[in-house]
């Protein structure tokens, strides 16, 4: 479809199957792409790019201070970073803006005691205390970006504590019976 039609219509028919698609387009679609800013050659005595010594530096990395040419400067969260710092994820904002993925330790802590109880309960003699230790060790780990509450850790600790206590009680009970049997 021509751009003007996309801009005014809310639907577009597929050219191969004919299905009627709902389309919402936004002004960025019509904006002409910005021309790339090419680096200039560095003259004698001028500051040069760290990675391209022949190119003139135009900015310094906000994190490590390295000089950068236009090709190397990365606009990032209102600052200019060098590619190395972006790749390494340096700086205090790393945990917030750079995380492409996270492991959900709280979900692991919750799943282990419950699944072991449901699938093979004798294993809880190991998984109960292990979950307690695991929850204590991983308590301060960052959670999911979109979930803030640590209730999974709390429930996991309560369940694993109950499992551990039950096993302790059972062991003491068996020990008492064993002693009584011997006497």
């Amino acid at each position, binding site marked *: 479809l021509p751009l003007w039609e996309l801009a005014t219509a809310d639907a577009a028919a597929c050219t191969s199957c004919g299905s009627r698609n709902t389309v919402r387009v936004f002004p960025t679609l019509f904006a002409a792409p910005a021309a790339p800013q090419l680096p200039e050659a560095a003259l004698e005595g001028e500051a040069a790019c760290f990675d391209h010594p022949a190119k003139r530096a135009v900015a310094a990395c906000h994190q490590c201070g390295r000089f950068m040419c236009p090709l190397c400067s990365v606009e990032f969260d209102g600052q200019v970073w060098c590619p190395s710092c972006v790749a390494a994820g340096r700086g205090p904002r790393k945990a917030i803006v750079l995380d492409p993925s996270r492991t*959900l330790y709280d*979900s692991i802590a919750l799943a282990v005691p419950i699944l072991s109880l449901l699938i093979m309960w004798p294993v809880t003699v190991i998984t109960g205390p292990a979950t307690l230790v695991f929850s204590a060790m991983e308590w301060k780990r960052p959670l999911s970006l979109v979930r803030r509450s640590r209730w999974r850790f709390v429930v996991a600790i309560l369940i694993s504590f109950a499992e551990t206590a039950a096993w302790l009680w059972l062991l003491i009970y068996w020990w008492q019976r064993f002693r009584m049997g011997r006497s």
Partner: protein
Amino acid sequence: VTPPAETYRRLPGRRRGVITRASIWMGSDHLLLVKSAWFREEYKRFYLRDIQAIVVAPCARFHVSVPILVCALLWLLPLVTVSLWPAGLGVVWVVATLAMVATWVSISAASSCRCRLYTAVSRDELPSLYRTWTARQFLNQVKPWIDRVQGVVDAGWAEAERSNAGPAAAPVAARSPQPAARIARRSHTLASDLFVLSLFVGALVDLSVVRSHVAIWPKVTTCLSLAQLAGAIAVMVQHYRGVLSSAMNKLAIAALVPMGVMLYAQAIALSFPNIDWLNVNGAAISLSWIAVTHQVVDGAGLLLGFIGAALILRGGSPHDPDIIKD
């Protein structure tokens, strides 16, 4: 000093598979697509200033989500007592099962879609949006935010291009920020008012005749239950169409829960006609057990009726998440 964490608001649409899940969230200046498998989440950010288009393409999606799976298992659970069922109940159960399967198939075939988000350098599918009504809700919520960041396309430009029969010149987008569209949902409609009324009347009538032996009352209470069911469905349909607020929708869902509990209780009681439930001191009290369940469910219905009345009287709340404020 660690800067404050980004706060995200969930947007419509959630895909909950047995292993994989997906959802999409609104941040301060970007959409966050969250895909998770087992115990790991992967994130992809789409900055509002970079989004070029969102396309919803209708197609069949036969996705079995975890809630549907759980409902199916709960529905199949009473089969363990099938040998004890009265003659007619089995037929009703099979017909209801076929109706539910047909509904799921028709929704999956006719009301499903793929939603794709386009930027200058990428084309990504949003897996959490696979039903057309959810995609519509998503678009209605997201478009005002993107318009606020990017502005809107100048209508005059499109008209000029149409009359010139071809976009030869560079298109111009009006970059002046426009106020976000207000998606105003009503706190109550005639259907929701009747639904709340049916909650009150149903609960009060059932409470007053629960121990009555007059033959007409069970039919009356059944009709009132059907009215409540129809009202709840109407409220949910109006919510999906963007007419009613989410609070009333939640009330309708909450009202369906005690009705389901009551149906289960009655089905179980019918399945074991000769067993004395909670046999205390040799006296059969199965009928009392059903009556107590009735009273508990009626109490819940009455409470929900009061909540519904409060929602109606309160009117539009400034904290309604469905209303995007300027």
